[in-house]
């Protein structure tokens, strides 16, 4: 595909959780929990009206689903603030500080005064019906090999509640995640190359990781904005894998190109979507289709609409394995139905040729016309078919602006319409925060090293290999490494390889390496440095120490890993030579190899090989 010709434009939004002690507006810890909730809250949300009686369209659609929400909460892990039963406490200054550091690292302009806003979100993910967010800085820059990218905005906001699933028609959320400080970094939508998006995402990740941010699955989330000239802006939420980004872009562009083709064809055919909804309960009274008979038996309705001029296009593939019909179904599913049936796939699913013909007759279908069937209870089915109608009408006019959810196969599915801009107002419960220029200067003169700078420096300073240095940076072990090296003269590579590789191997073997703290590490390396243990037994000492909760020294003694003194080694070698006197006399230095092997076996790693070698050599020579 010729992206330039298609006018591809992309923007990126990165959400990163901060690793602060407390949440953004309450004193709860920023930790998720798997404990059984202590209680649940049942809540309902209503969209509020804007000035012209106009309700935000994304908010409006959510409310049409009339969902009630269940919130799982805890006696200790959460408090009344998350439950929306207590006003927010003052803004967490630690979180703001981290935001200011990131803003400075990205050369952004920091605002003079931070205002907390309420951004309306009524999908239930926020108990208040809005997310609290504030603008920290604007207009930053990031250099990439494809050119400079403008970082438009940096916002500090609260993370949403965690969606746990659905129970009896209610969406269940857990309050543990709600309120964890989150940074939102937004680029301008000027990127033209998919690889550039990937690079920007990577670089932003690196900048973020140079500060106190959370690590691990779900702590960073990327959203992708994509548009082509004749298409529309689409936001793809939750792109986890950076390597998948170029493919994701390709599939979205493909989708929009195909939707444009469908649109052109529909216009050529003078396609129309009438507002009539037909009830097909009579036709399907004795159907073999499980879904339909099931719906009828539960007093549901089988509803249908006519799509003039759509025949053949509903089955057209718009993304790999996803058809235009999938797009229509996406809208229907949002109203709670499991899917739709359409002409281009019928007869199938137990629906017979005769039934298709009867429907066609009732709807007075012509050659180019198609129909859609939805089967479910009355309200759900009606809402769903109206949504399909709405989506089909848009298909004749344009590619709709949408928020879509990233799927693992680099496709995406419909989530909701793009939110309109008009849904923010000020959070009156939180005073504004002045950010003084003097404070920014202090931050700017104490900026953390970026990961790439850190790597270059430790390679230089400690003569580490490129790979070892990268691993240390990536695993966030540089601080531990430098802490140990600060008070030790031990070989940096020994420390580096333990931190970069050994710990990883131990974790794979099932050792809880989180218990191996820097104190244990430091004491273990001190034993190596003093010649008390051999570096080959470092991992044995570490594991032994955490298993039995003993100090590394006690562990080494217990495991019999303490090195012998030079005298002890010498005595041992004397005995050995005596036992093998004949061989030494026969072969002279030729006995060296055999005796070396025997010594090492006897010493069991409790002596340095070099010393053994030297002593052996001396003794053999002296015996002559």
């Amino acid at each position: 595909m010729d992206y330039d010709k298609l006018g591809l434009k992309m923007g990126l939004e990165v959400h990163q959780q901060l690793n602060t002690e407390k949440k953004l507006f309450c004193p709860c810890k920023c930790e998720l929990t798997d404990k059984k909730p202590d209680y649940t809250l049942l809540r309902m949300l209503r969209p509020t009206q804007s000035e012209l009686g106009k309700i935000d369209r994304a908010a409006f659609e959510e409310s049409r689903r009339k969902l009630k929400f269940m919130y799982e909460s805890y006696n200790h892990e959460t408090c009344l603030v998350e439950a929306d039963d207590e006003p927010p406490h003052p803004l967490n200054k630690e979180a703001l500080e981290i935001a200011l550091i990131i803003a400075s690292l990205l050369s952004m302009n920091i605002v003079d005064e931070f205002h907390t806003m309420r951004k309306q979100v009524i999908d239930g993910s926020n108990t208040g019906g809005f997310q609290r967010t504030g603008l920290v800085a604007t207009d930053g820059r990031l250099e990439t090999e494809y050119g400079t990218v403008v970082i438009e905005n940096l916002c500090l906001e609260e993370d949403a509640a965690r969606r746990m699933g659905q129970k009896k028609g209610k969406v269940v959320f857990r309050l543990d995640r709600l309120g964890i400080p989150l940074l939102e970094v937004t680029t301008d939508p000027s990127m033209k190359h998919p690889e550039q998006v990937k690079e920007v995402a990577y670089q932003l990740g690196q900048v973020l990781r140079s500060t106190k941010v959370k690590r691990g699955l779900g702590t960073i989330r990327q959203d992708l904005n994509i548009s082509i000239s004749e298409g529309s802006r689409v936001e793809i939420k939750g792109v986890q894998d950076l390597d998948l980004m170029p493919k994701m872009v390709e599939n979205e562009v493909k989708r929009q190109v195909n939707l444009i083709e469908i649109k052109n064809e529909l216009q050529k055919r003078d396609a129309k979507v009438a507002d009539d909804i037909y009830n097909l309960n009579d036709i399907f009274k004795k159907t073999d289709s499980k879904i339909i008979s099931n719906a009828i038996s539960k007093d549901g309705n089988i509803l249908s609409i006519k799509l003039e001029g759509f025949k053949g296009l509903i089955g057209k593939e718009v993304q790999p394995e996803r058809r235009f019909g999938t797009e229509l179904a996406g809208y229907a599913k949002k109203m709670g139905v499991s899917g739709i049936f359409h002409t281009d796939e019928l007869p199938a699913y137990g629906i017979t040729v005769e039934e298709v013909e009867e429907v066609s007759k009732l709807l007075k279908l012509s050659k180019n016309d198609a129909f859609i069937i939805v089967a479910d209870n009355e309200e759900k089915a009606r809402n769903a078919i109206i949504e399909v109608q709405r989506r089909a009408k848009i298909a004749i006019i344009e590619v709709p602006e949408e928020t879509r959810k990233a799927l693992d196969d680099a496709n995406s599915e419909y989530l909701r319409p793009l939110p309109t801009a008009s849904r923010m107002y000020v959070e009156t419960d939180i005073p504004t925060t002045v950010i003084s220029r003097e404070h920014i200067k202090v931050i700017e003169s104490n900026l953390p090293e970026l990961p790439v700078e850190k790597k270059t420096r430790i390679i230089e300073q400690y003569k580490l290999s490129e790979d070892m240095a990268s691993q240390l940076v990536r695993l966030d072990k540089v601080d531990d490494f430098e802490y140990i090296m600060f008070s030790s003269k031990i070989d940096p590579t020994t420390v580096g390889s333990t931190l970069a590789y050994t710990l990883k191997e131990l974790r794979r073997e099932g050792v809880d390496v989180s218990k191996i703290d820097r104190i244990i590490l430091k004491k273990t390396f001190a034993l190596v440095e003093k010649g008390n243990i051999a570096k080959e037994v470092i991992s044995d000492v570490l594991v032994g120490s955490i298993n039995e909760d003993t100090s590394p020294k006690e562990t080494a003694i217990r495991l019999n890993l303490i090195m012998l003194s030079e005298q002890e080694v010498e005595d041992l070698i004397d005995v050995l030579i005596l036992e093998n006197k004949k061989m030494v006399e026969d072969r002279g230095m030729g006995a060296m190899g055999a005796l070396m092997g025997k010594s090492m076996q006897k010493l069991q790693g409790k002596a340095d090989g070099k010393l053994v070698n030297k002593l052996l050599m001396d003794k053999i020579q002296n015996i002559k």
Partner: protein
Amino acid sequence: MGYKGSSGKFLDSSDISIGDIVKITKNETSYQGILLDRAEDPDDKHIVLKLNSGYNVGIDVVDATAELVQKGDIPKLEHHPLNIKKDADKPDISIISTGGTVASVIDYKTGAVHPAFTADDLIRANPELLSHANINGKAILNILSENMRPEYWVKTARAIVDEINDGADGVVIAHGTDTMHYTSAALNFMLDTPVPVVVTGAQRSSDRPSSDAFMNLISSLVAAKSNIAEVTLCMHAEEDDSYCYLHRGTKVRKMHTTRRDTFRSINALPIAKIENGNLKLVDKTVEYKKRSNNDVHLRDELEEKVALIKSYPGIPGDIIDYHIDKGYKGMVLEGTGLGHCPDNLLPSLERAKNEDIPIIMTSQCFYGLVDMNVYSTGRKILSAGVISGLDMLPETAYVKMVWALGQTDNIEEVKKIIQTDIAGEIGEKSSEKFFLN
């Protein structure tokens, strides 16, 4: 306008006013957006812009230059009338607003929140109201409930009488929650109503999607249509948006600063539970005044010079003396435990008795009966002429004293009124179920 000091001067000299679209440039940064008014805070350096992204930012005016992009108007809210036809099959319910915003509309352009007062506003914000009743909305006051005063109780009571005389089948009062239970008690003493009067409000402001206002309002409407012709208070029963309780207006108290279920019936059970539009009695044996075709009666003479005083370890008699000296006509003591105050208050209490100033003793425990016969202190207080408030809440006792002193100058008559159950405020019989429910 909230701008003062250097930010005020900056705006004046740039000839920029609130609502204008402006571009503010500082060093290498520039911001474009609508100039908003500043909330009432002491800051005099920062102006507030609403950017196109919807975010507000504060900009220090030092070294800033302003450029007018487009003159704007101070945004105002304009609505076309709804012209809703009256449905003869539905009851007529009046909603009287005193200032608690049970409904509001947000102007997202500026982020301003406009309270909805008129019937049209209410219906626009909550169209579901119409499926319950014909709605007649009226705003008689616009005050925060902490600023409520006895004279406003009178104003509210008179407005209710007008609505009932105009044919209302029930009245809902929208009220701030802080002093809602004082008002519900006061209305109970002042009004003899043939139709339900329901006081309601919200703990989460109505501009938020999670507001409890809507459910409280709809449930109040259900109560206003019911057979319970008393002044009641209707609010969330739990932290959940599950159902509301209808409390007796004299037996209810705000017990939590922020929770939705802050109002609790004390020394009583709530009268009814309202869930999904259905009202059910909590205790089937409960007595309440039934809806009738009688006329509404109003007894709105009040005596405002009444004080509510809390006893505490170390309280000096001066406090009582002060109120006597200042011409207070009655007092309510919020005593400790069974209804006690320290011995050193006795001379002042005696003095009040001699000057015909009635004093009611209530308990800061809230729960349980005042009984001054158990300990000697109590007996001494009794003989100093203090009247037992029995199981009345201190707030209710205060309101009752304000009302009773308005009804008669005869001190013996006042004492009789205080100890007679007028509007369900005194319960003779206690129950295990009354505590912390």
